[in-house]
């Protein structure tokens, strides 16, 4: 490639990312889901809480594309609104885990003395299945959307910590870090400016995967009754509520589940594409 290109870095980044068509499709699906969730009040055909008992349990039709639920509410509308809670929880979990995991991982990777302590804790937490630890934490904290975010953040932080730590261990030994240290750059500045910037790619890849896991886990928790209270529409609570009508009105379960599958699948495809692009070495490992 010639040294000087007129293209902006953002465009170059997207061009490389979308070289695989499937990643482009995934990003488009994701954008549609996110836009629907953001624009919910303006584009939803009905009110998410508007009950019309005369219209209850109607199968999918031209007026109600995804049918209606046991209170005659429009399922499509509720899925669009449910995306707000489900994706919102996912975003919040991603932000919390990125912050906590990065800080812990940097500390573990940079300060040898604290490494053993932090990593033993990480090992212990990762010896419990995600969903089990999450159920336990929500049980202790109380079931609410905020506590679901807190619980899932605690559950997924060890993954980020591990990734950041192992990258930090590699980067800290590189000559440019040594050079910075020799020049008298403070530890804080080395960690934030030199190491953090160089471990950003694996963090970004983890973020997309954790987003997908969080959407799946939130649905699982809400389904088990240990998550978001049932009166808030999320994809998980919708499936939980629709379950008992499943033999008469399978659309109550089918469509919210498909929303989860589409969201999680496109996030994982995006994560895969990012990993391919940012670290071709990892491609072989997985």
């Amino acid at each position, binding site marked *: 490639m010639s040294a000087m290109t007129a293209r902006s870095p953002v465009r170059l980044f997207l061009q490389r990312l979308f070289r695989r068509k499937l990643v482009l499709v995934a990003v488009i699906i994701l954008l549609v889901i996110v836009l629907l969730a953001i624009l919910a009040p303006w584009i939803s055909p009905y009110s998410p809480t508007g009950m019309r008992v005369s219209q209850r349990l109607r199968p999918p039709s031209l007026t109600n594309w995804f049918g209606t639920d046991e209170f005659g509410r429009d399922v499509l509308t509720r899925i669009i609104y449910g995306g707000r809670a489900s994706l919102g929880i996912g975003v919040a979990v991603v932000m919390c885990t990125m912050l906590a995991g990065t800080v812990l991982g940097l500390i573990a990777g940079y300060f040898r003395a604290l490494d053993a302590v932090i990593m*033993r804790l990480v090992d212990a937490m990762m010896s419990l*299945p*995600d969903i089990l630890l999450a159920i336990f934490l929500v049980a202790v904290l109380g079931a609410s959307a905020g506590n679901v975010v807190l619980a899932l953040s605690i559950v997924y932080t060890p993954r980020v910590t591990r990734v950041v730590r192992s990258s930090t261990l590699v980067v800290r030994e590189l000559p440019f870090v040594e050079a910075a240290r020799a020049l008298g750059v403070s530890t804080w500045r080395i960690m934030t400016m030199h190491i953090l910037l160089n471990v950003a790619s694996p963090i970004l890849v983890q973020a997309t995967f954790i987003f997908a896991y969080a959407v799946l886990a939130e649905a699982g928790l809400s389904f*088990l009754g240990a998550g978001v209270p049932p009166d808030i529409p999320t994809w998980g609570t919708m499936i939980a509520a629709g379950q008992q009508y*499943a033999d008469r009105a*399978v659309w109550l379960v089918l469509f919210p589940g498909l929303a989860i599958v589409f969201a999680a*699948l496109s996030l994982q495809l995006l994560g895969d594409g990012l990993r391919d692009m940012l670290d071709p070495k990892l491609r072989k490992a997985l």
Partner: protein
Amino acid sequence: MFAALARRLAGMLIVMFIVATMVFFLTRLAPGDPAALMLGEQASLADVAELRKTYGLDQPVIVQYALWLKELLRGNLGQSIFLQRPVIVAIAERAEPTFFLALLSILVATAIGVPAGIASAVWRGRASDQAVSGGAMLAASIPSFWLGLIFIQFFAVRLGWFPVAGYGPPGASFAERLYHLMLPASVLGIVNSALITRFTRASMLDVLNEDYVRTARAKGLSEARVILRHGLGNALVPIITVVGLTAALLVGGAIVTETVFGLPGIGNLVVSAVLRRDYPVIQGALIVIAGIYVLINFSIDVMYTLVDPRVKY
């Protein structure tokens, strides 16, 4: 080798100790007095105080912790608040469905993942490879409880091939109980096949490029023999690892799946304990499950030495 295994064993015990400590102190964060919870709303203050004393809840937290650890070392996980029996007994009673569900699911996941992974490695880059990779990612994006509900509607309610839920009537034969596990095991196996598929593909790709595979082909062995004996035979270690890891992950997936299918297993026990705030049961189940996970990981390490003579500690 024994020194290394002993070191791994020590590491395992440390992890279990941390899990136990974490579980103990996190439970103490829960709102509400366990004694009051145990006695119900009608209990008098005196009764609650009495019970707090019996359970040592009037002691400082650190003393309670020491006591709890001591009992734990003796295998005592405490008493269930609602089930009127020791936690360890409650868990043991529910172990059978969970064990066989996990076992059948891992069989399903392996039966899907290993052949799919081999196929996509052998036909690398072709349409079948892409279909397998896409399928694996799709499987990992499906919530198991949702797939369970859909399968119940289709295979049990519409087609009537499988029972809708449960573990058979009391006294049901072993075959009948296994029959009840077919549908849940398929769901759990499909959802958990992705990791096995990807690892099998990756390790087969590595092995198929080795010189000895070329030699095997050169001396005129059939392609099937080359792939299965020389290829798969040498890719077994990573595949065993990932099957073991999947087995450990399945324990978590089983919790949700058991609830969907109404199986009286450990998962169901945990979920009802959470809904009833039966903390001793939750604590006990967490410790037992973490123990299983750690043990599986340890067994994987031991198996390495058996399968691959090159691995020496």
